[in-house]
């Protein structure tokens, strides 16, 4: 998209904008001889910022690393970071700013599904390549939109991993569910809830837990009353810890399943107050191991190298797959980089190395969900390591 000739009219502020707009003149927006501009957005302030930086910093570390090794086809990656505040208004502004003001080549970002929808129209309208960072709502990338790709496990796929696992557990016929009432939990639980009856499992109790709740007594007691065979939780890590803690406290002794957001089981163990409550906890996962495990040691090193002040955490791993996919596609698209070229290159990815992810990424023209399957984890008997129990239940303890 070339620069449009626009009428100059009075208005100091806007003429500055105009000057900025008329700046770029290269073949493709956001690409110069030695840089590629990638826009990134996420919640960098406010109450959800605790997910923003850790998630975005993962890919940033990878981009920084590739820049140190000389970049791609001689071009270094330049990151423009904008705040989306987990809010459609801020996200829309961030996306528009990245596209029209910063003139980035592509966007890699978005951690809150609802918020990403604020910017999705602009992304579709301009056709800019968009790699979703960690937002999970299905309808973002399914059915496939020409320029939108998701490398991470979609919400429904996450739920389905849990469902498949439940279906293979012996003697599990009646389960209890506890979930938040937000977009995140809906994305993960809606397909799960819709499909569960077809596996001969009955949901006997469906409870809600407030985000930032301070205890789970009522939920646990309601669950205990119906005597479920297992519990499926669609809760953020902090709330999942509260639930497991209270479940142990009130003697609800059944397997508890969590989404891939709770895959940092070591952290869960710490938050729930010891191994006891999490002994029988299984979480979905789509990366090889949480941060801290030897399998992800390389990525941990990457994080401590580029972000020495931050605590490496599993959230860092979420967006790394996308970063590797982008780097691979950029390499394949060659020196004559265009947005369409990148999109075509992304659609050729099949089984590409995706960093810490267990999934091998595969995009086709009609399939822009790069990762459709996951695995399940649990803690070892001594609680010191994480065991991959696979998609089907097998007794490991």
């Amino acid at each position, binding site marked *: 998209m070339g620069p449009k000739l626009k009428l100059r009219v009075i208005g100091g502020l806007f003429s500055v904008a105009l000057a900025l707009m008329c700046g770029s003149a290269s073949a493709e927006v956001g690409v110069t001889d030695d840089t590629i501009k990638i826009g990134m957005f996420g919640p960098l302030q*406010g109450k959800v910022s605790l997910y923003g930086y850790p998630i975005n910093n993962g890919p940033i570390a990878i981009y920084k690393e590739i820049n140190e090794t000389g970049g791609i086809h001689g071009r270094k990656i330049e990151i423009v970071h904008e705040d989306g505040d987990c809010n459609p208004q801020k996200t829309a502004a961030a996306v528009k700013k990245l596209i029209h003001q910063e003139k980035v080549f592509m966007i890699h970002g978005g951690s809150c599904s609802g918020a990403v929808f604020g910017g999705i129209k602009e992304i579709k309208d301009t056709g800019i390549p968009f790699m979703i960072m960690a937002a999970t709502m299905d309808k973002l990338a399914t059915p496939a939109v020409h320029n939108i790709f998701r490398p991470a496990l979609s919400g429904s796929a996450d739920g389905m991993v849990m469902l498949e696992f439940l279906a293979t557990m012996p003697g599990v016929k009646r389960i209890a569910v506890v979930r938040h009432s937000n977009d995140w939990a809906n994305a993960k639980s809606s397909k799960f809830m819709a499909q569960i009856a077809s596996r001969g499992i009955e949901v006997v109790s469906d*409870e809600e837990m407030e985000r930032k709740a301070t205890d789970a007594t009522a939920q646990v007691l309601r669950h205990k009353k119906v005597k479920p065979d297992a519990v499926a939780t669609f809760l953020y890590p902090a709330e999942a810890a509260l639930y497991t803690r209270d479940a142990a406290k009130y003697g609800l002794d059944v397997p508890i399943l969590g989404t891939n957001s709770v895959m940092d089981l070591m952290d869960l163990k710490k938050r729930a107050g010891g191994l006891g409550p999490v002994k029988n906890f299984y979480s979905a996962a789509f990366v090889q191991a949480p941060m801290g495990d030897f399998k992800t040691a390389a990525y941990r090193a990457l994080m401590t190298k580029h972000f020495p002040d931050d605590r490496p955490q599993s959230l860092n791993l979420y967006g790394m797959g996308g970063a590797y996919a982008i780097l691979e596609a950029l390499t394949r698209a060659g020196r004559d980089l265009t947005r369409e070229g990148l999109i075509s290159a992304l659609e050729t990815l099949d089984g590409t190395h995706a960093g810490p992810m267990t999934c091998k990424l595969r995009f086709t023209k009609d399939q822009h969900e790069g990762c459709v399957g996951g695995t399940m984890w649990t803690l070892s008997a001594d609680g010191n390591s994480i065991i991959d129990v696979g998609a089907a239940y097998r007794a490991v303890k």
Partner: protein
Amino acid sequence: MEFFILLSAGLANGGYYALIALGLVLIFKAQDMVQFGHGEVFMVGAFTAYTVFAVVGWPYLVAFIAAVLAATVVGMIVERWLIRPIAHMPHMTLVMVTVGLSFCLKGAARIEWGKDIYTFPSVFKSGPIVIGEVVLMPQQLVLVAFTLSLSVVLYLMFKYTALGKQMKATSQNMTGAQLSGVNIGRVFSSTWAMSGALGGAAGALSAPVLSLLFPDIGTFILLKGFAAAVLGGFGSIVGAVVGGFAVGVMEKFVGFYISTSLEHISAFVIIMLVLIFWPKGLFGTKDVTRV
């Protein structure tokens, strides 16, 4: 029996609602205003306790004292440098300033603590206390006992000490109290100090019970404190304590017996209902309509 489990869990939660409500009520009694920044005082207490106990590794008692001191200092600084220069202004100005204060403190906390949810390690190594089916953490018992004894102390203070009487006089008529020789600066100062101490104590005591700390924790709990204070009829010490426990217990009962999705919102339904139907609060002594 679920009833007793819910009751005990509710009372344990109600303990810190009551402490928050007490802090609010104190300032309301002396200055006739609502402190919207009180949640952040709670947050300061909780994070101070966390730092001293979990990061530095000193005993919990030290952490508790540090938290109380830190929150007291915050309260006094806010009073001395922010509120006192504008004490003569309309109450709404004061209230709005505390809203601004709340955002400042929260924003400041987020710079240091905004990147994670922090876990407060448990204080008592002994496991939960089990009585029949009722399971209680030792920390919860400490919290409830502390709340109850503190409210008795406060009640007696208001009834019998000179300071208590001066606070009462000041809230009813600032100029009048000043003319009759009350050092209102000292009264405000001690009120805010006490309110801060209460907030800090609430933070330090409930941090191990809540176990998860984040900068927004104050806002969340302040709203529950409002509900408790309104239910108790803003301005009554006994009311605040009873209101706090009532809100805590009711949340659990609503969550279990009606629906878990109503658990959180029930506190706000209470505020609405109480203000519509019993404007004096259920235990109120002070007229809410203040004509």
